[in-house]
């Protein structure tokens, strides 16, 4: 075992897959310049053909990724930040999500879109979105949000090898975090949630970077005699609702911590699933700790108040126990 940062894990995943398979390449704005620090050493190793800078032309290069995938390549398309996907939305929805289905299985789209999310750092509304819930409503896309270096590596490698489009939402609040990653091959199958801490009183499901808050809250709740079970969702589509329902059957209480906007959120979807299929296990209403339905303001203090934090999770969990 080694200690590896999230961002290093991402680089390792891409580098190993590009070494293993010539059809894998990465393109996006400034990838060859290693603008984000997540492509360290790659252009030196693979050259600018396979670590390919693109113009600022999201619809063009996302769609080009789709076309390359349809004829057998396995492109990794670097979105730089998740909201830039909006510029390419028709390509993502009409082409990438729908081609395999519409053409009756004639098309395969083994494409990975990397969508780093940068919020809570005063970039204002346009740069700060966490748009996985928007994309969750579209069939035909797999969406993941790995939350540890281990999963960042193993799930990204699984995404690249998947014959379907996968969008990976990397929470940049996690990029600098380090933890143990095994040496050698590491594949983490998509579609499985992970129980990060076992507990008996309340289930806390976390999405993306909320894992940090969920684990800290669980620690605090334990000191108050409340035993929280923390589940890292990891995969948004497909969603591992079995693990959540099993946990709620045990704890009888559910709290979902999701950094995205509350309306129509992943937290909402999990709430609906548990209300429908786990209703008789519930001993209290379902709680959601999310961002209210307003935009991210530039002002750091205003922004901070809107986002989920450990105190909010603790307070909501306490309320569930009353």
């Amino acid at each position: 075992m080694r200690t590896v940062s999230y961002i290093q894990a991402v680089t390792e995943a891409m580098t190993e897959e590009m070494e293993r398979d010539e059809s894998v390449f990465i393109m996006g704005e400034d990838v060859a310049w290693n603008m984000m620090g997540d492509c360290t050493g790659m252009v030196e190793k693979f050259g600018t053909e396979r670590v390919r800078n693109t113009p600022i032309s999201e619809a063009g290069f996302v769609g080009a990724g789709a076309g390359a995938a349809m004829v057998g390549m396995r492109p990794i398309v670097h979105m730089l930040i998740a909201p830039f996907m909006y510029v390419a939305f028709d390509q993502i929805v009409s082409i990438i999500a729908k081609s395999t289905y519409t053409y009756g299985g004639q098309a395969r789209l083994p494409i990975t879109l990397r969508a780093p999310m940068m919020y809570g750092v005063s970039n204002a509304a346009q740069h700060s979105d966490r748009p996985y819930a928007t994309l969750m409503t579209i069939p035909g896309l797999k969406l993941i949000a790995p939350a540890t270096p281990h999963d960042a590596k193993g799930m990204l490698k699984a995404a690249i090898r998947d014959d379907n489009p996968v969008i990976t939402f990397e929470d940049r609040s996690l990029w600098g975090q380090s933890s143990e990653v095994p040496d050698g091959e590491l594949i983490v199958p998509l579609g499985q949630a992970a129980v990060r801490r076992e507990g008996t009183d309340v289930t806390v499901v976390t999405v993306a970077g909320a894992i940090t808050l969920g684990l800290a809250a669980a620690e605090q709740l334990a000191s108050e005699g409340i035993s929280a079970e923390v589940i890292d969702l990891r995969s948004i589509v497909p969603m591992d609702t079995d693990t959540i329902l099993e946990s709620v059957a045990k704890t009888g209480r559910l709290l979902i911590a999701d950094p995205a906007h509350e309306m129509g959120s992943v937290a909402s979807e999990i709430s609906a699933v548990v209300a429908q299929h786990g209703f008789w296990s519930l001993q209290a209403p379902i709680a959601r700790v999310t961002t209210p339905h307003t935009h991210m303001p530039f002002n750091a203090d205003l922004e901070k108040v809107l986002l989920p934090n450990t105190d909010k999770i603790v307070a909501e969990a306490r309320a569930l126990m009353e």
Partner: protein
Amino acid sequence: MVVETSGHFWRFGIPSEGIAREKGELMITVDGDFLREMYRRMSRIRKFEDTTKELLLGGELYGAFHTSTGQEASIVGSCMALRTEDSMVGTHRSHGHPIGKGARLDRLLAELMGKETGVNQGKGGSMHLSDFSIGSLGETSIVGSGLPVSTGAALAYKMRGEDKVSLCFFGDGASSQGTFHESLNLAAIWKLPVVYVCENNGYGELTSAKDAISVEDISVRAVGYDMPGVTVDGQDVLAVFEAVSEAVERARGGGGPSLVETKTYRFENHAIGRLPEHYRSAEEVEYWRTERDPLVLFRQVLVERGFDEQQVDDLDAAVGEEIVAAIEFARQSPAPPPEAAFTHLFAPSAG
């Protein structure tokens, strides 16, 4: 038999010289079998479209229905400049494109009937009539959305060192979409083996290109991306074939992308049977149907070049038989089972 013909052909210069039209003459040499095949494919499209219109109006087909009638020369001239292994991308108006590249009619017709034996197993229909076995990479019904896809296929061919060419069909309307401009720019900076064929039929949905497009000849837009752009008579199959062949040869030889504009016309309304047609005059439609019908024009060329009428009639008759068999195949084919609504959402992953 050897035929020589000249196309209507203009070339555009660079902006600093003004947009100079220099009328040139291109000579091509093709044999009689090739010409017969050209006519046969055009006839297959025409008869397929006449039949599908009849079936639609008779209630046997359903859905939004945009036919290629009138645009056969543009389609066949382009497709026959490609090799079998070259790929193409089509549009919402692409019943004709797979036929132009040699697809079986029965599986296309079955798709229009929503049958399990259809090219897309009944999930694509009229606006996505896409047969991947003949090199299609999809027919996409959001205007302009196919351009990045064809550009990406060309990127793959270039990265793998293959000598394949990617061809993209799109209409005049698509040339105002951002994806057109982004794709041409990408293809130019990366020198990709792609040919953009703009089938300018004069109308984007109901609005005249005159009211919607800043230039008279869309090929002018190639200048902005430092690639060759030509406009050609889209009703003259040999002229289209010449222009697209030159672009394909350039692409295959490492010379990068080209834009070919074919001036053509759709004989039918934007969609069959459901829209007003007050945006264009009956006289205009009549003019194109009588004076500019690509099948009639090509038949004249064939006869001038030594074919007798009977030979051409025989080609039409053979196509007619193929259509009858295709209708029978489609009618006899089973509907997809209810669970088909859930299959192909994802490809089974090799993992």
